[in-house]
C-alpha cells in the first residue's frame, strides 16, 4: 500500500480539465492508486471543476481552483477550493429524473449525482471568499 499527496492549481479556463487529467495521471502512477479508485476520483473532480467554472465565474473573472488529494490507507481525501461566487453544488445543482425514458431524459445534475454516489462523505462550506468542497472516497 502506498500513500501520497498532490496539489493542483487550475485556472478557470479551457486548460483546466486537461491539466487536471494530466496531474491525476501522474498521481496515479506515482502512488499506484487502484484503477477503480482512480476512475472515481477522476470523475468526481472532472464534474466538480466543470461545475465550479460554469456557475462560479462570470466570463473574464480571474478564477483559481486549488485541488488537494491525499491517498492514505484505504481512503482518498479531497479538498477543492475556488474563489468564485457562492455555489453549493450539493444544494443547487439540478436533480436528475432517473426514471425518465430516453425521450424525456435530461442531462442536468448527473455530475453531482456521481460525486454523491462515489463519495463516502461529502460537504460544502463557504469560507470567506472561497467555496470549499471536501470529499472522502474509497481507495
Amino acid at each position: 500500500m502506498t500513500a501520497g499527496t498532490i496539489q493542483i492549481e487550475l485556472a478557470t479556463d479551457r486548460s483546466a480539465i486537461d491539466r487536471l487529467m494530466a496531474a491525476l495521471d501522474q498521481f496515479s502512477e506515482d502512488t499506484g492508486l487502484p484503477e477503480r479508485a482512480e476512475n472515481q476520483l477522476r470523475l468526481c473532480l472532472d464534474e466538480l471543476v466543470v461545475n465550479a467554472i460554469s456557475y462560479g465565474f462570470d466570463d473574464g473573472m480571474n478564477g483559481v481552483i486549488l485541488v488537494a488529494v491525499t491517498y492514505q490507507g484505504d481512503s482518498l481525501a479531497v479538498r477543492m477550493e475556488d474563489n468564485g461566487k457562492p455555489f453549493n453544488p450539493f444544494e443547487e445543482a439540478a436533480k436528475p429524473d432517473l426514471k425518465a425514458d430516453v425521450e424525456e431524459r435530461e442531462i442536468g445534475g448527473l455530475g453531482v449525482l456521481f460525486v454523491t454516489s462515489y463519495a463516502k462523505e461529502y460537504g460544502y462550506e463557504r469560507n470567506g471568499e472561497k467555496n470549499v468542497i471536501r470529499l472522502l472516497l474509497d481507495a
Partner: protein
Amino acid sequence: MIVNSETVGGVTVLSPSGRIDSNTAAVFETSVTKALAHAPRMILDFSDVPYISSAGLRVVLVAAKKLGAKKGGFALCGLSESVLDVFQLSGFASILTIMPDRDAALQSMAG
C-alpha cells in the same frame, strides 16, 4: 481522442479511443453529430474508452434521442466495468441497449 468510423451491414459503428472527459467530449460530439446526419442506425463501441463523464453521456443521450433507443436503431457495446458503472448510476443502462461486444450489438439490430 480519436473516433474511428466504419459501416457494417448498414450500421454505422463509431469507436472512440481514449477518455471522454469534459474537454474531449467535444471531439466525440463532433463525430457523433456528423454520423447522425446520415446514419439511420448506430453502434457506439466503447472497447477503447476507459472513462466517461456526464459530458460524454450527454452526447450518448443526443444520439439515443435521435435514433430511438428501443427500436433497434442504437446500441452500445464494449463498456468497461468503470464505464458501465457510470451508465448504471445515471439510469442510462435501463433505457439504452447495452451489449457485451460488437457482434452482439450488430445482432441486436438485425431484422
